[in-house]
């Protein structure tokens, strides 16, 4: 059962949907993995990890947006999260992504982020988007750049400390790309 009023979005391989109770354990497993979650903000214990899951649900209810669960269309597996994040103290709304263990290397985050960005511009009416990435998170920086984002500045994040802010192309520039990331729409 959906825990929020999040819409359901689709791409060729993925369904982006509201967090549900069945996503709790995969999310907790990710947050407790101190290495994999270091760039996102790892949880020191199960209690804190559960609380993060709960506050993402609350984020949806307060802002009307938050992190979607990424579901693989064919298998129904929860492969990660992707969404728009803007808690108090954040510099501005950001698009974020996490891919769980075992789902990397397939372009899942890229596919999800493109769809979420279109939703943020088209449905939420945002006019600009950022991604906050800790220095050294080279995989996320590479994805941000692949999405057309560029490094704007470094700042001190209230949760993550020293942080790099990447600016995404705006609604006009980000449009015209298919979910596969190709530029054939221009052809």
């Amino acid at each position, binding site marked *: 059962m959906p*825990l*929020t*009023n999040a819409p359901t979005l689709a791409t060729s391989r993925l369904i982006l949907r509201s967090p549900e*109770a069945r996503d*709790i354990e995969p999310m*907790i497993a990710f947050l407790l993995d101190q290495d994999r979650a270091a760039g996102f903000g790892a949880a020191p*214990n*199960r*209690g*804190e*990890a*559960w*609380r993060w*899951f*709960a*506050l*993402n*649900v*609350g*984020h*949806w*209810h*307060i802002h*009307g947006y938050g992190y979607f669960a990424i579901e693989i269309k064919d298998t129904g597996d929860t492969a990660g999260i992707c969404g728009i994040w803007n*808690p*108090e*103290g*954040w510099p501005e709304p950001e698009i974020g992504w996490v891919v769980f263990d075992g789902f990397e290397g397939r372009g899942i985050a890229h596919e999800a982020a493109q769809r979420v960005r279109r939703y943020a511009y088209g449905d939420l009416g945002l006019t600009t988007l950022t991604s906050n990435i800790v220095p050294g998170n080279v995989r996320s920086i590479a994805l941000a750049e692949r999405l057309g984002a560029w490094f704007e500045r470094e700042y001190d994040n*209230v*949760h993550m400390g020293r942080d790099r802010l990447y600016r995404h192309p705006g609604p006009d520039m980000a449009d015209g790309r298919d979910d596969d990331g190709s530029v054939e729409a221009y052809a």
Partner: protein
Amino acid sequence: MPTQNIPTLETRRLVLRGPEAADYPNFKATFSSYRSRFMGGPLNAYEAWMLYAAEIGHWNIRGYGMWMIHDKDTDETYGMAGGWFPAAWPERELAWIIWPDKAGHGYALEATHAARRYFYEDLGWDGAVSYIDPKNLDSIRLAERLGAEKDHAAATIDGNDAVYRHPSPDTLKSGQLSDGIELEINHYCDPLFKPKGFAID
């Protein structure tokens, strides 16, 4: 976007409703203050917002949670009370917090008494505990006024809290406990004795 399906409870002076975004500033003020020292605070703005979001998420995940306590007539908020059961908690907790400038009027007693009755009678809980910092004398006193007793054998959250076990539904229904609580609440609503001043010596 309101949280779904949160029941509203009414008492003599109060109405308990789900936490809404509009109620956040008072929550933030309390949790950024020294008032929250026994509840993990004081928190910075980011931490307070994240905790408030978790309060709302808790309702959706568990189907119960912490209500916002409103004045029935003016709608102003006085604090929060209800059930709290995040992953690290050994048992379901009855919890409360009253904004610092609204303490001393019996609001926590009235709200928690109603919340406990709802959990027992409508959700079928067979009991509950309150995890209280041993230095939080006001909350220990409230737990005792609600009929809870210290349970030395019960598991704690992290070893730094005392466990107060609430009376079971049957115990609460039998005997004079509920009558006494309601008498005390009624006295807050309609004081039998209103001092016009205090003796100065």
